[in-house]
């Protein structure tokens, strides 16, 4: 039996509010353990009287240990910490092992964000995030939290952050979360600002190098196309590169369906190359990416429509 409250003198002044399920039997009802049920009764009681205290922290910790997905408890805990001006550093120290135990939990990450926002420093956070990503390298909440950190503490020009992202991509070039973070850091988080010539060259070179490691990996292809679109460059700046992996004149030697896809875009933009665009799309539909045949054919039809308009 875990912690109880009814026989604890510290809680003698509280009249718990038990769960009231009224007349009919509710749907998807949970037969709570006595321990959970009692703790929740005390939580409802302290919430009803807006109590913020040290003992509320203990109570919320107890309930979180039984149900870490309980947003009400997390939100009330955050409010309590703020009201009693508790040490947020202590809170982070307590939070670390809890987060590692419950990797997929939404609430923990939002709570952490609230705490670090209050502390006003990202110190130690990159290291902690790395520990988390070792367990689950594509955890959505962890990456989103990292993006928040970059924004909150303006780490956009932090070389360390960019090198770390590059390290994550090196470790698994197919980790799309790492690619997204790089985009956010270098391009996306900067209010639509165009890249300088230096940075543009650096990013294109980087993504091309990563494509060469595994040409059938879509992430760096998307990154290249994103950069070109962001800079408002013609897609044809990628033509020579795409031709390294796919050439419609050598239809049996295709090393990347994504190169064919890109070539179709390039030919579609090029004067008089509609037939080549169609050939690329036909190759995708019939051989190199047939599950998306409907989509490739749709792209083909669009070519004819633009012809009609022209």
């Amino acid at each position: 039996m875990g912690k109880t409250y009814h026989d604890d003198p510290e809680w003698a002044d509280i009249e718990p509010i038990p769960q009231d399920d009224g007349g009919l039997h509710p749907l998807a009802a949970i037969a709570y353990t006595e321990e959970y049920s009692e703790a929740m009764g005390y939580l409802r009681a302290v919430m009803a009287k807006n109590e913020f205290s040290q003992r509320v922290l203990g109570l919320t910790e107890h309930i979180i240990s039984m149900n870490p997905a309980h947003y009400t408890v997390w939100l009330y805990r955050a409010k309590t910490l703020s009201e009693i001006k508790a040490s947020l550093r202590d809170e982070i120290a307590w939070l670390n092992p809890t987060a590692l135990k419950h990797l997929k939990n939404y609430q923990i990450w939002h709570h952490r964000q609230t705490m670090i926002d209050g502390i006003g420093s990202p110190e130690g956070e990159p290291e902690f995030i790395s520990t988390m990503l070792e367990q689950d390298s594509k955890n959505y909440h962890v990456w989103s939290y990292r993006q928040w950190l970059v924004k909150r503490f303006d780490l956009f020009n932090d070389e360390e952050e960019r090198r770390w992202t590059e390290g994550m991509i090196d470790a698994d070039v197919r980790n799309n979360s790492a690619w997204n973070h790089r985009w956010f850091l270098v391009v996306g988080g900067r209010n639509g600002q165009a890249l300088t010539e230096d940075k543009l060259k650096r990013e294109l070179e980087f993504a091309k190098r990563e494509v060469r490691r595994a040409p059938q990996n879509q992430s760096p292809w998307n990154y290249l196309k994103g950069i070109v679109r962001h800079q408002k460059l013609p897609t044809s700046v990628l033509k020579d590169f795409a031709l390294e992996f796919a050439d419609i004149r050598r239809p049996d030697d295709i090393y990347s369906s994504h190169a064919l896809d890109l070539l179709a875009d390039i030919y579609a933009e090029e004067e008089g190359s509609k037939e080549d665009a169609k050939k690329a799309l036909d190759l995708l539909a019939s051989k190199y990416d047939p599950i998306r045949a409907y989509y490739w054919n749709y792209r083909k039809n669009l070519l004819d429509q633009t012809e009609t308009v022209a």
Partner: protein
Amino acid sequence: MAASPRRTSRSPSPLSSSPPTTAEQPPSARLEEILNSENCIEELSSASEDDLYEDMGTATLEEQANITYLEKVRIPIHDSLTTETSEAQNETLEIILPYLEGNPNDLPLNIFGIPELQRKKHIAFLQQALGDYPGAFALLDASRPWLVYWSLQGLSAMGYDISEYQDRVIHTFSLVQHPSGGYGGGFGQLPHLAATYAAVLSIIMAGGTAAYESIDREKMWHFLGEMKQPSGGFTMAAQGEEDIRGAYCALTVLSLLHIPLELPPSAPARAHGLTTFTDNLGPWISACQSFDGGMSAAPGNEAHGAYAFCALGCLSIMGPPKQTLNAHLDMSALIHWLSARQCSPEGGYNGRTNKLVDGCYSHWVGGCWPIVEAAASTPNLWNRAALTRYILSAAQFKKGGLIDKPGKRADAYHTCYNLAGLSATQHTYTYEETMLEELGGSELDAPYYWKVHGLHGGERVWGDGDVVDEVHPIFVVPFRAVHDCRRYFEDMKSFDRGIARTD
């Protein structure tokens, strides 16, 4: 390199129901490859001759057809570089392939040689999901509204009459409606937009005056006003996270309950100059479109299938999809990204680039297509048959309920969203120029212009017994529930808009 798929003795089906191939049936090249492969012999070396015979015996005509199909839709290019991602993908494919090739669960097959929808078993599974849970399920204590919604929607999709639950639905949610408005996950829990969304959809599925009247709309208005942020988005709870789920859930409730578009006087966003729920919302959703064309939880995050549906759903409540999607999104990039979510050769969807197939995205991504097709005025952008194969062959749990992928347990969430995805493969919907059933004509009425256009006429692999009901493309409940609800609130003239009091 991608693991070469092979049938192993792990997944034999009983000889009794699968007659062995005879000499007249030409064994596929694939089968020869299997029998000649050293790997296979190694794997079978410890098996008795009977096992070997049984394994050969699984190559029915249906299986040969499946194997031929899978070869046809496979991307023939494989990079040699091995990373964590490619290892996970290869392992997963090896687990899934036997279900796409053969019939390891020994389910009855439809006329296309694909497992039939196990309707009775899935109904029984969801009925149980609405029942009691032991104490160890405390982890779900904040998600009970979801359990009710997923189960009721899944049952409805399978044509099951849920009216027997009507009173209990009303009662269940009356206990978790918060005194300050909105719904919490359980008794005494704070109001939350996810719980509120699930509660409102469950209540309107139950339907009837008592159900509609159980919702305190005026307090709901105030609660939603609290959630609206100066950025244009919505938080899920007071001091909670702001993401695209919040916007979709809030607009769903606003539209269905016909709540005024003006922010309540108490809304904190008013201090920042906002006056309506949709102020700044379109640009905020635009900022959620990521560099690869997909939609993310919040600006800057990674594109993700579930958030994509929320984003498109939200835009389709704000106005006709043809207007709102084209105004706020790069459509060609979006369609490219959505299309890339279909895994090959599995046919099911993943949620993000280079992630694994999961049955729940049958809806989150599959459900985006009716909206996108309406916005692009083009039918048939996606491979419905491939998705149907994944759902029926790989996402049905033998004992009932649907799943993420073979080897996972069934739950109400995956059951609901696999079935919604199956529905999307079978039905066609059109966005009409004129209003239906005299609904709308006022605020946030765009969702009431959708019309069921009949069964999909193209390539199909589902039999008549596998057909599930139509699902409203925006609200993911039956059309009847949507129209009855809005009609009820449309005619309500007595709603006190509160604003008047401040004028």
